[in-house]
């Protein structure tokens, strides 16, 4: 009966403990400094319970508390029994004659003895368990320490967020990254404050998406730490969902990617200057064509002006015709201005832009610029452009460069061939789903299988004077626009075709 009572008492105590610890915002200082991964392993067979409570105890801790409860109850019971029975026993001993005692008198002391023995055993168990716990803790601490060192050396911060309390647990490195001192409170608001204002929406979106699909998420953003410094970090997180479907906690890592970003920016900058260099090359290649483009309006202006000189000497002066001449001069002047503006755009070293462009217009402009060059090479141009809008977000100069590269490349492929002067250049554009597709086909010798693979490598050229940058830069341009550039030999006829696909802005969305 007593035993039953004590058992009841134990479960009550342990339940009370469990409730207390489960609700406590910070179970104990040891638990907060511990990483979740090794604990996860320990708890794995208690998953049904631990899945609910974010900060549940380890199995060892659990049984220790139970044993403590039982021991307390047993000691109480023993004490009470002994206190009640002691006078009876003493009286009996005194009243006895000789050594013949009634054994029945010793029933209660026997129970007390058994209880005491049980207590001793339990305390021994407790001591053993405590020892085991210490060992485990030591192991845990060691593996945690190792993990922390490994994480820190990889510039990786570890964190865990508890939904119920809105508290973050984070490694010191993690705090350092976010510029939050060790003592300061760490909650969602503090973290959000640290995120660069421009990136906050992006971070929130990523987390929400992760939570709603209960899958891992990854987001790259800037954090502003003191003195106007900004660092780039990448956070990976995994949400843990409670059995009622609500978010229980999110655990994850955060990595400082500032240096990587800097390097990436440097690579992009170098690529830009390379692209610029190759544009200068194109301008050189097109110098004849550009001179022609510039000469045409200049010729018209000069002749018109000189005609005007004669006209004003006439009597009467034909004012209507004079007005026409002036209008023509103004138009030709702006035409010359366009050529120069375009030339400057090609020669200028500019950062990549994203404007809404019509790819068909880019193609037409490139053809206009290369027209006299193609004419002198006796290349026939066939265009087969779609009537559909080919809107895309892109850099006007880079896309122009891309088309000039592909057109000049095709023209040169055809010119290099003895006995096949001239040829046909077929430019087509169309739409396939979300992509726009542009193809530039020539009737040249085609591309030999052995150079097909190397064609887009930088500094690979089959031309005597080629730098070998045109196609590699074209590829870089297309890639930076989220597209693909590839080449194939024409099936059933001479020559090769370069294909470009890039994501387009669907009709209606284009501004």
């Amino acid at each position, binding site marked *: 009966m007593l035993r039953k009572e004590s058992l009841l008492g134990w479960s009550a105590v342990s339940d009370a403990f469990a409730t207390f610890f489960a609700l406590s915002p910070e179970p104990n200082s040891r638990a907060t400094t511990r990483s979740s991964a090794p604990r996860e392993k320990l708890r794995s067979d208690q998953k049904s319970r631990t899945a609910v409570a974010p900060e549940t105890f380890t199995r060892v801790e659990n049984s220790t508390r139970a044993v403590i409860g039982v021991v307390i109850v047993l000691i109480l019971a023993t004490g009470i029994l002994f206190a009640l029975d002691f006078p009876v026993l003493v009286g009996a001993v005194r009243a006895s004659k000789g050594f013949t005692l009634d054994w029945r008198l010793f029933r209660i002391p026997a129970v007390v003895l058994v209880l005491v023995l049980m207590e001793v055993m339990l305390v021994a168990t407790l001591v053993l368990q405590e020892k085991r716990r210490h060992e485990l803790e030591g192991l845990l601490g060691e593996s945690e320490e190792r993990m922390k060192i490994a994480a820190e050396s990889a510039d990786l911060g570890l964190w865990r967020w508890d939904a119920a309390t809105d508290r973050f647990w984070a490694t010191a490195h993690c705090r350092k990254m976010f510029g939050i001192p060790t003592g300061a409170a760490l909650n969602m608001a503090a973290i959000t404050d640290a995120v660069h204002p421009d990136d906050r929406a992006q971070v929130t979106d990523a987390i929400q998406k992760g939570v709603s699909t209960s899958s891992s998420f990854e987001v790259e953003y800037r954090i502003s730490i003191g003195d106007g410094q900004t660092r780039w970090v990448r956070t990976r997180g995994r949400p843990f969902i409670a059995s009622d479907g609500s978010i229980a906690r999110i655990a994850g890592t955060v990595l400082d990617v500032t240096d990587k970003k800097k390097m990436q920016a440097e690579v992009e900058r170098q690529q830009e200057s390379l692209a610029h260099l190759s544009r200068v090359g194109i301008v050189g290649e097109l110098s*004849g064509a550009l*001179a*022609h483009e510039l*000469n*045409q*309006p*200049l*010729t*018209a*202006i*000069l*002749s*018109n002006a*000189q*005609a005007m000189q*004669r*006209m004003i000497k*006439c009597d009467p002066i034909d004012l209507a015709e004079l007005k026409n*001449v002036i209008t*023509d001069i103004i*138009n*030709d002047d702006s*035409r010359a201005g366009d050529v120069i503006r375009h030339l400057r755009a090609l020669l200028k070293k500019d950062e990549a832009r994203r404007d809404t462009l019509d790819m068909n217009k880019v193609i037409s402009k490139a053809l206009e610029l290369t*027209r*006299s060059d193609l*004419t*002198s090479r006796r290349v026939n141009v066939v265009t087969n452009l779609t009537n559909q809008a080919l809107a895309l977000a892109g850099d006007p100069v880079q896309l122009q460069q891309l088309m000039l590269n592909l057109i000049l490349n095709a023209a040169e492929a055809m010119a290099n061939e003895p006995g096949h002067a001239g040829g046909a250049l077929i430019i087509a554009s169309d739409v396939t789903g979300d992509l726009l597709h542009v193809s530039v086909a020539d009737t040249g010798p085609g591309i030999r299988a052995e150079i097909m693979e190397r064609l887009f490598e930088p500094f690979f050229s089959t031309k005597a004077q080629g730098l070998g940058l045109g196609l590699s830069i074209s590829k870089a341009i297309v890639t930076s626009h989220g597209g693909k550039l590839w080449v194939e030999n024409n099936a059933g006829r001479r020559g090769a075709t370069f294909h470009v696909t890039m994501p387009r802005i669907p009709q209606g969305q284009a501004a």
Partner: protein
Amino acid sequence: MNEHMRSNDDHCVFIVDDDKSVLTAVSRLLTTAGYHVKTFDSPMSFLAEHDPSVPGCALLDIGMAEVDGLALQDILTRSDHARPIIFITGNDDVKTSVRAMKAGALDYLTKPVQDTALLAAVETALGADLEARKTRNEQSVARERFEQLTSREREVMALVVRGRLNKQIAADLGIVEKTVKVHRARVMEKMGVRSVAALVHVSEKLPVPGALS
């Protein structure tokens, strides 16, 4: 330029350039200078529409799509439609200019072209065309007259042009000197000349020199 310099008003400058603004401006300049002008914005329309019998010169742009200026020159010189050609080009390319001049171009101007240079070239070209047409005219007259001669008269004429005396001609042909004199008088009459020198001059205009041998 000096409009009075032009001796003949029956002329035309044919301008071919596929750049419409240049075409308009140049034709305007030539019109204000008093020339008759006909413009074509493509070599094809020029070949299809222009009237070769109208005297005048052609002003061709070199860098044109379809058929470039040099190819057009080639077509013109191979046909009977030959007329003086002035090229205007945006590219001052030595190779092309040499090719054009060798193929008989009268002038090769680079854009933007000054009015003085253009008008001088046009004037020269019109003069050359006039001269060429005059020569062609004389040639056809000479040919017509030559065709009226009998074969004996042609033989006599060939020998006279070579400077043989009547006595020598008689010996060459195995006829009497008196007969030679009669033939010679007929030749002079039919060819419309009075002296041996004039006959030599006319004979040079005959298209087939071999006809005289």
